[in-house]
């Protein structure tokens, strides 16, 4: 388990990174937290000619609230998100999600840019990107573009990024104060990749659902937004029949895989259970201040 030989570059500015990426194209691989990349290198499942270590690019490491937007630099560590006051007070759903990302040691290294670029279909940050309508800022030597999370994740471990692209920033939309939220995950052990997870943010000030966002992961090729259920619930007051309908829709709307740990049928079952819990909890939390 030693990696195949590779060159190593450690640029300190975004411009340097982009020029190295432009030069080497798909022969290059960006090293951020390394929590997924390094094992793949050691198993020799990836053999980049050059590793571009972005850990010294200070300009990518920031976290700030800008109006109703949370701006997150691509190099922001998972632990910084988890411990951030802004996240705790304005995005409790994200904070809860971060607690499910592996273990503290891994969270202290892993980055948001790395997690989104890696695009594991059972990883929390890609799911949060879908839930919170992330706008992903991508740069290459030709310029910058902004990609909606909806257009970013294409397939397992596959995004719309080109080899010379670098994710520089992720903008998450902050729900209005008093929004309800919920996050439920089933994993075999704490910190494991989820068999399934569902999350929600909801605005229902007078008991009537004005807006709701629902996302799930581990149950499809990519993290998914549950648009059809959102549509069903919008403008309605929650009752048992409505929830039952949403649960049934949730089970039908995903396409889970069977793998070593769980069958598609099992994941679909969990999808139903977790959807029920999340909708109920999120609506129940509406109007309550964050912890």
């Amino acid at each position, binding site marked *: *388990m*030693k990696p195949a030989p590779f060159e190593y570059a450690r640029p300190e500015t975004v411009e340097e990174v982009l020029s190295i990426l432009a030069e080497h194209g798909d022969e290059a691989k960006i090293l951020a937290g390394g929590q997924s990349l390094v094992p793949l290198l050691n198993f020799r499942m990836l053999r980049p000619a050059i590793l571009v270590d972005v850990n010294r690019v200070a300009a990518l490491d920031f976290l700030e609230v800008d109006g109703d937007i949370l701006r997150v630099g691509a190099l922001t560590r998972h632990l910084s998100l988890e411990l951030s006051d802004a996240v705790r007070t304005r995005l409790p759903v994200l904070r809860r999600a971060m607690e499910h990302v592996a273990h503290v040691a891994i969270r202290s290294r892993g980055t948001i840019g790395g997690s989104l670029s890696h695009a594991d279909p059972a990883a929390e940050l890609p799911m949060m990107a879908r839930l919170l309508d992330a706008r992903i800022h991508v740069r290459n030597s030709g310029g910058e573009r902004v990609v909606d999370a909806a257009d970013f994740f294409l397939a397992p471990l596959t995004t719309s990024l080109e080899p010379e692209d670098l994710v520089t920033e992720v903008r998450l939309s902050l729900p209005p104060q008093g929004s309800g939220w919920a996050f439920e995950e089933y994993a075999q052990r*704490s910190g494991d990749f989820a068999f399934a997870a569902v999350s929600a943010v909801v605005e229902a000030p007078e008991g009537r659902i004005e807006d709701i966002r629902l996302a799930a992961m581990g149950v499809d090729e990519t993290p998914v937004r549950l648009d059809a259920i959102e549509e069903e619930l919008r403008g309605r007051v929650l009752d048992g029949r409505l929830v039952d309908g949403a649960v049934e829709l949730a089970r039908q709307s995903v396409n889970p895989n069977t793998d*070593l*740990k769980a*069958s598609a049928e099992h994941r679909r079952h969990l999808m139903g*259970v977790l959807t029920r819990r999340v909708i109920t909890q999120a609506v129940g939390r509406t109007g309550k201040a964050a912890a």
Partner: protein
Amino acid sequence: MTDPTLLDRVTKDPGEAGEMRPRSVGARVRRLEDPRLLSGRARFTDDLEPRNCVHVAFRRSDHAHARILSVDVSEASAMPGVVAVCTAADLEGIVGPIRATSRMKDYFATSMHPLARDKVRYVGEPVVAVLAENRYLAEDALELINIEYDVLEPLVDPEAALADGAPLLHEEAPSNVIASRTFARGEIDAAMAEAEIRVSGRFRMRRKTPLAMENRACVAEWDAGRRALTLTSTTQIPGIVRDALAELLEMPGHSVRVVAPDVGGGFGGKGSLYGEEVALAALSRKLELPLKWTSDRLEDLISTSQGFDELVEAELGLTRDGAIMALNADVIGDIGAYSIYPWTGVMEPVQVVSFMPGPYRVPVYRGHVRAVSTCKAPTGPYRGVGRPISTFVMERLMDMAAERLGLDPVELRLRNLVRAEEFPYRVASGIVWDRSSFVESLEAACEAVDYAALRREQAVARAEGRLLGIGIATYAELTGIGSRISAAPGMPINTGTESATVRIDSTGAVTANFGIASHGQGLETTLAQVLADELGARLEDIRVLHGDSSLVAHGTGTYASRSAVLAGGAGTLSARAVKDKVLRVAAHLLEASVEDLVAHDGFVHVRGANRNVSFREIAKANYSDMGRLPKELREDLSSTKTYDPFFGTATAATHVAVVEVDPETYQVSLRRFLVAEDCGRIINPMIVDGQVHGAVAQGIGAALYEEVVYDATGQMVTASLADYVVPAAGEVPRIDIVHLEAELPSTVGGFRGMGEGGTIGAPAAIANALSDALSPFGVAVCDLPATPERIFRLIENAGKAKASA
């Protein structure tokens, strides 16, 4: 026989000086090895880097079963930085295959070549060794080796491997069954027919890997000047490896030294001889180079000996009153590709049938076992050996019978456990239990958890729709076994004795040499505690040496819950002999008679007088200060003794698990876990607790998480720790422990072995608790680990069955 002097000493009138001193045995002494282990100052095998060391990497088989047509190493050999590339041909004539022989009837001993010759039989089998300047270059060169294979049909399912016409894994063997055995007492068919109640099941425990924190590693150093070999290895059995290498390499034992330095866990996985050790030793001698190999986690997962892979069909017959009448069990043990040295692949499955009747009166028994070879990594000893499965099966059958009879599971057990007055009790399979806390452990466990209250809590929970389950497992095991019983059936090596040399040197310091090899058990501390009490020395005056074949003439290592009993016994006997010498010298120096002397804290005192002499002065007078002692009194203050507990002793325990299953997600949470155990006299309660905690954690792994999976082609699909999942801190609840000392066994010191019990009881207790929790669904857990997917399937299938009924 109970050793009278030692028992006297604790029970004697404490009014006399000396006997008032706090004894070390029984105290929560902090582990002497921990400062170095916790501060990064320990020396593990991988810390060793001899000058000009050459690093080895193995090209391993990608196929489960294939004939090797050709191996082309030319490109790899030509790579810069590569020192040599070796195949089976390079070992031809210098080292033969490893064969675990046995006197067992109709047993077939497989031939395992350190580097595969002609055929490969499991994915991960070493085929080629690359020797290079560093491990990186060695791994680069592995990719340049071209091996041409003729792929053969893989043997993955042990039942299919049994079938007529199945391809033979070892062509020279008559079948894929390397051994079969039957234990029988009484007429099973008649007894079963007579039984008023019969319960039966098909039980499965899935293959596990020991997963020590430190991967296997070894360093071979050939001293060309002295024509001597030192192998430093992460082994639990340096003495066995030394003896085997001396034989395989045709060298005298004085020229082969096997050292196990600090070793980071073994759990049985480091308790066998490995091809890598033999290959490095042979190649180091041949090439006159120091060689080092440190396996990575992938290699560890695919090539370290695995365990617990059995399929058991069993039936239990009882009277209407709940008295066991008969037990019938058929066991298929999947031993993997080779019969491991020295234990053989038969040891694990045979233990399943030997121990199946458990701590109960089973008048009529039939146990049949077949050990089948398949295309998987070889199985070997793994903490618990056989008994986790036998206990799982028997304890499930007991719960199933209790349910049928409408009896509480505790009540049914109490009606059948061997009672105090029945010891020694001869088990139908031939094992003899000496008295241990069979009934007492069950009663103590029930009292400690307040069993009646737990059942009430369960009734309330059920009424609320919660799935709460309580599971009990009572078991007995043989530990500290002596020469009467072979650790493995028919094995030609003696594992029933251990030796110790205790020596006071000219500075008055005590050094004790042992043949055992502590690898996490804290034996440097516990053995020092035993010696300190015996000698009257201070702990800090004693250094315990172990893990080195040169320390004793014969010693086999640390495994099978034997070290406290055997090494503790040998150390005790040696220390007594040394103390006699010390007192003779002291008597002369103090002008007192030996009977009036007592030793403690490194001094010999005259009882009732204010006169003493230190061990240091005694040693000086004996060895250095000419003229203080008459010539005939001077002697070496040392002694070597061997201890053989002959039968060994029974260790018993009861485990209680309380689980709750989420009625919607079916997620299992372990709410409580309690162990009531009897390990005889406790040397260090902290270490005993640690052993229980660690072994229960591994039992939780066997019950809920850990499973080595091979796909239909024989590829291992759990070759990383993302796929082979073990319980981590978050998955292990607080474990409560009740220590019992019903009656001390007849071992020297009154110790029983206790390192494996947690793994033996926990899977059964958890399986019973889960079955109890899930009983509203009408399902029972018979297949471990009970992974989320298995539980989901059980419940879904029960639901479907109900719907279609």
